[in-house]
């Protein structure tokens, strides 16, 4: 290190010690941290991420700036993150399907092992939904109806389509599957009864309270605490699920002490009322805290399972 560089570093350190106040001088972070959101502003990931940034900011003693890098269901953000400096100053908050699913069907420039999964803070809420005005309500009723009548289904990803195709084949349904381009396109099709049932990644939270949309089954591994009476597809006897976590993800190679700080901040956030209120109250995602060990396993387990479903 040249003397000038040393001077700059030293003064930056001194400055941070003054600014950060209660935080010990040599503790990470020494400057503002960037949280990347792989979706456009306004979606559920963005809403949760912005509150999380505020909470983590209180814990870390440095500003946590939110940057939206939308594109290809977060694949753009993950590509950029894989190439980022592994110093912890840039981390991502978001779902894991861009890792457990996207690389299987698309040629992306990153892989699961390019990242570390420090903590999960919320559980994904993938579900199968239908309109309250349809002659069926539960998943069993849908199947029963489908044995007699041709049916239509609105998909959002190749993964949920693959699962429904398997189920339809097993049950002998005559099913036409249409794309929707996302939750915003799904809702009018379901509510206008243009399709019989559909996949929902979380959009249903807007329409179930009014009773217009009903959830037939959850695609997650466990039932949702917000809809305790709705079974999962697994419970109904189909061996498929779409598991997804909202997690804090960093590029491989971040120093241990920095990772520890981020994990502490995440655990702190998982108990913070502001984060819980927004995540559970506004977006209907249950807040959890899964540590790195669990998450590394989870991501790899779901990836293997997804590869099996998609292998055709």
């Amino acid at each position, binding site marked *: 290190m040249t003397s000038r560089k040393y001077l700059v570093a030293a003064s930056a350190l001194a400055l941070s010690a003054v600014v950060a106040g209660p935080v010990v001088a040599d503790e990470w972070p020494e400057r503002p941290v960037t949280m990347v959101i792989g979706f*456009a*502003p*306004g*979606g559920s990931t*963005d809403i949760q991420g912005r509150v999380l940034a505020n909470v983590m900011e209180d814990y870390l003693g440095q500003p946590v700036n939110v*940057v*939206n*890098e*939308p*594109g*290809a269901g977060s*694949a*753009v953000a993950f*590509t950029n993150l894989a190439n980022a400096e592994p110093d912890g100053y840039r981390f991502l908050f978001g779902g894991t399907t861009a890792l457990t699913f*996207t690389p299987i*069907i*698309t*040629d*992306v*420039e990153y892989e699961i092992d390019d990242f570390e999964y420090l903590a999960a803070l919320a559980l994904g809420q993938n579900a199968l939904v239908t309109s309250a005005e349809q002659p069926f309500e539960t998943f069993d009723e849908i199947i029963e109806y489908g044995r007699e009548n*041709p049916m*239509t289904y609105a*998909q959002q*990803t*190749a993964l949920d*389509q693959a699962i429904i195709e398997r189920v339809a084949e097993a049950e002998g349904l005559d099913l*036409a*599957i*249409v*794309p*929707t*381009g996302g939750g*915003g*396109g799904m*809702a*009018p*099709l379901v*509510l*206008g009864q*243009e*399709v019989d049932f559909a996949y929902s990644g979380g959009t249903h939270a*807007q329409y179930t309270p009014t009773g217009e949309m009903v959830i037939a089954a959850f695609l997650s591994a466990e039932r949702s605490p917000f809809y305790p009476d709705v079974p999962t597809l697994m419970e109904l006897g189909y061996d498929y699920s779409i598991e997804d976590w909202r997690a804090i993800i960093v590029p491989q190679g971040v120093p241990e002490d920095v990772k520890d700080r981020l994990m502490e901040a995440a655990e702190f956030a998982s108990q913070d009322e502001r984060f819980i209120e927004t995540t559970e109250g506004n977006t209907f995602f249950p807040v959890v805290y899964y540590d790195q060990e669990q998450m590394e396993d989870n991501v790899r387990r779901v990836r293997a399972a997804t590869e099996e479903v998609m292998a055709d």
Partner: protein
Amino acid sequence: MDFSIVGSAIGETLQFDALFGIAGGVFLGYIIGVIPGLSRSVAIAIAIPMTFYMSPLIAISFLIGLSKGTAAGSAVSAILLNAPGEASSAATSLDGYPMAKSGKPRTALQVGLLASVIGDILATTILIFVAIPFARVALLFGPYEMAAILAFALVFIAGLSGGDIFKGLAAGALGVLLGTIGLDNQTGLPRLTFGYTQLMDGMPLIAVAIGTLALSEMFVQSEKLRYERETMAVKLENHKGDRITFPILRKIFPTILRGTGVGTFVGALPGLGPSVGSWMSYGMAKRASRTPEQFGKGAPEGVAASESADNAVIPAALIPLFGLGIPGNVSAALLIGAFAIHGITVGPLLLRDEPELLYSIFAGMIVASIFMLILGWFGLMVFAQITRVPPHVVIPIVIFFCLAGMLLQGYGAFGLIILIAFAALGYLMKKYDYSFVTFLVAFIITPMLELNLRQSIILSRGNWEVLLGRPIALFFIACTLLAFIILAKRTIERKKPIAEIGD
């Protein structure tokens, strides 16, 4: 209508930051409108990146205020310079400039302003009372109806914007091609991305819009600089007697009402821009006048007719936008992009899901009209000065905003390269008379058209008879065929284009 929601929506609009956003939009729009050569869509294209850090309400109010401001501002240069700030005010200069030369510049400006504001407020009111029931009906529109309407809009725009429907279709086809880039929305497989992750969500709208609309226009303008001599603006001085009087107001009032009607009608149809509205209104005013020989020599009715229609188009173009999510023109298409950036899907569900936001936007539009009146009335002198800013100052500033806006999008150097490529494309299209408007609208509606068409085909299982139970879809399919045949015939007969669309 739930009045508690309306009440809180109005309350939200009257917050200081919302008011500030609207006023800022109107003010900026006014300035851009006054500068010759900078049009409404240029203004919106440049301004969308500025709204990234605003709340959705402020962002949308800001953009709508901006488009209203440009419509009013363009009258200033039309009247004082005989160089309309944009094509839709060209009809204004026919009578506005003679009025200004004969020593009545202030009267002309005030007539233009009042016509703009009244046309604007009336059309906004119509929007509010039409869009709300319309959105309820529009819920019945399924993929069949949407696909048919989008196809109709595409053919209509292709035929009207350039005059030559085959050139129009060529431009449209290029837009369709570029609109299919990105991940296929059913299989998730990439199309035409050439391995670039950045293209997986398609060509970035901001790059395409800023490139073909704003940056390429700067190339065109700089080229013009070499040939054009300077035009002198009519000076605005304090003459006694040069102000709007009650008899003049009474004389122009029926014209304003007619202009508003024409503008609203034209604006609500997809594909017809404000230029069609203002020319049509001007023609009708002339025909209805008892002294048609005065037109073109400084008749205040001429200014009033053109300006009221020009401004009425803007709120009216939002009727199909808020009702169906279909853009009526480029500015409305850019607004869809702006909504998307703020995580809002425009369409019939907007009224149901976010009524407060929609009512706030409506309230914001009325507030914007009032700001327009205040700014225009008291700021006439200041805005008149802006007509004197030379293009060699304006052009570099606009180019800076184009590049900076693109960088804000977060695409980095890749985004800049795409931006410049589209600027070159836009320049060539303008040069060889291929409609960039058709290109851009086609680019924006292609993903929607593709999705709805695909849904229709899959849901009907390829059975044409489904359409017999869908009279609205059938009607629009018939209209599409009819429009294509009529427009093609017109082109083959080498007739003059119906109208130039500048928006």
